[in-house]
């Protein structure tokens, strides 16, 4: 059995449009024949693929930006048992849509990547872990591949529950092991790469990352590095939440983030702040956003992160404190409820922010909020509390004037306005339906 049918290679895409190459317009066909016509057949490279990924400098696009070759090598070397490889498409961040887009419009790129991982690591099992909505498209794609005997092992599907933490690495493993809910476990002493699904070494890799692997396997590391910078090679998908709903774009790393996201200078001038990386990410001022390049290193230096590529613009006519308070309430509810500092800390953080955003005059000030951020940061089994702390800290920096107004007057003229961020909308809807 082989991934190679015949070595007929297609031309590599030359621009910055790679994963999304050929996907514009509503009529893009996600079928296998179209995929093979567009990209050519897959070539097996076994362990040489890991060297190629190393040379390419590919990092994970699920949010952690961890070097892919390092991860694959540690899975390969962690035990003599054959590993399990998992394509993680849970995308549990409500403001992100790029993984769902790939799974519906380019499922074979993702499955190629998973097949390549299974092949390179000699996997015992390969699983696609996706939300219910993505299952039909993946099922069709797997059936097409099975009919052509394309994959080294059978690819299974597992449903990812609709919960913020469902995509966290150890939560994925717990969900797949079936003994526990999709909640994180304490893995500081025994990493998932050593002991994951069924006790086997496990590779959990985001679906976009696997799609990049599919292209690197075909066109090589040198091609991958033709776009981007030496430190930040390649491209990444961004989900841009601006005036008219989420739009997915493919950005060259190292290029201007504002231009890549398709935000005009006029629109940025009407923007109050930009959330990067989602609810576990952080806020950038419009000025900073205008200066940032597409690089997680640069974003982290500025107190935020690109995470899994969420960009959300907060327009001038909404109340940023109310948006933040509602998002933190959402994040509190999305915690796994396992770690004391996170359970108590996020509840207290949400209450304090609520009083700052909605309460009367002379309520708690930003210093009280920051004190709780410091108490929850780094205190959980997973990074959920750390992400909320970054979201709040960066927000109080970018919206310092608004926070001062709230502390003085208890609210602002826009506090009662509609919410813009998806998680804030979810929380508002819930509160209204309960009232």
């Amino acid at each position, binding site marked *: 059995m082989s991934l190679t049918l015949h070595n007929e290679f297609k031309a590599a895409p030359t621009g910055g449009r790679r994963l999304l190459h050929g996907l514009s317009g509503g009529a893009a066909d996600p079928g296998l024949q179209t995929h093979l016509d567009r990209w050519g057949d897959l070539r097996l490279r076994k362990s040489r693929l890991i060297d190629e990924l190393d040379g390419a400098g590919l990092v994970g696009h699920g949010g952690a930006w961890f070097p892919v070759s390092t991860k694959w090598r540690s899975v390969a070397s962690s035990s003599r048992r054959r590993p399990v490889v998992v394509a993680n498409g849970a995308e549990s961040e409500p403001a992100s849509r790029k993984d769902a887009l790939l799974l519906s419009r380019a499922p074979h790129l993702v499955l190629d990547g998973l097949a390549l991982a299974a092949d390179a690591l000699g996997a015992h099992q390969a699983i696609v872990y996706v939300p219910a909505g993505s299952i039909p498209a993946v099922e069709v794609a797997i059936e097409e591949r099975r009919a052509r005997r394309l994959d080294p092992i059978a690819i299974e599907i597992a449903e990812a529950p609709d919960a913020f933490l469902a995509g966290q690495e150890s939560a994925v493993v717990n969900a797949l092991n079936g003994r526990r809910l999709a909640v994180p476990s304490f893995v500081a*002493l025994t990493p998932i790469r050593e002991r994951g699904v069924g006790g086997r070494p496990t590779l959990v890799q985001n679906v976009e990352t696997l799609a990049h692997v599919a292209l690197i396997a075909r066109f090589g590391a040198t091609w991958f590095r033709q776009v981007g910078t030496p430190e930040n090679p390649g491209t990444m998908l961004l989900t841009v939440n601006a005036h008219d709903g989420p739009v997915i774009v493919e950005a060259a790393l190292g290029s201007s983030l504002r231009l890549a996201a398709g935000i005009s200078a006029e629109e940025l001038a009407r923007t109050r702040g930009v959330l990067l990386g989602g609810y576990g990410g952080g806020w950038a001022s419009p000025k900073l956003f205008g200066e940032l390049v597409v690089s997680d290193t640069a974003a982290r230096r500025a107190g935020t992160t690109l995470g899994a590529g969420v960009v959300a613009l907060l327009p001038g006519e909404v109340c940023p404190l109310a948006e933040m308070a509602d998002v933190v309430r959402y994040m509190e509810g999305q915690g796994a409820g*396992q*770690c004391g500092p996170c359970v*108590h800390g996020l509840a207290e953080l949400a209450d304090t922010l609520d009083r700052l955003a909605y309460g009367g005059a002379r309520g708690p000030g930003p210093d009280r909020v920051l004190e709780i951020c410091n108490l929850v940061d780094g*205190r959980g089994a997973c990074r959920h509390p750390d992400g909320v702390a970054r979201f709040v800290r960066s927000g109080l920096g970018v919206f310092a004037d608004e926070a001062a107004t709230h502390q003085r007057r208890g609210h602002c003229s826009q506090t009662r306005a509609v919410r813009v961020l998806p998680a804030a909308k979810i929380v508002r809807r819930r509160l209204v339906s309960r009232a």
Partner: protein
Amino acid sequence: MSRWSLELVIDPIACDGRGVCAEMLPERIELDRWGYPMVDGAEIVPAIVDHAVRAVRSCPRQAIHLVESAC
């Protein structure tokens, strides 16, 4: 030659804030306002290893670990 050092690691899922560890090793462990231990990141030097081991052994939830790490 690589050097090994000892550090304390808390499993925050297992920990339910009994606070025994902070009594055993107050020089390194402090309780937060909800009663959960906060370990200062400093190395566990030979002089306090015995106390650290006692803190680990006395946790009713076995939520605190003394681990070796290369430094």
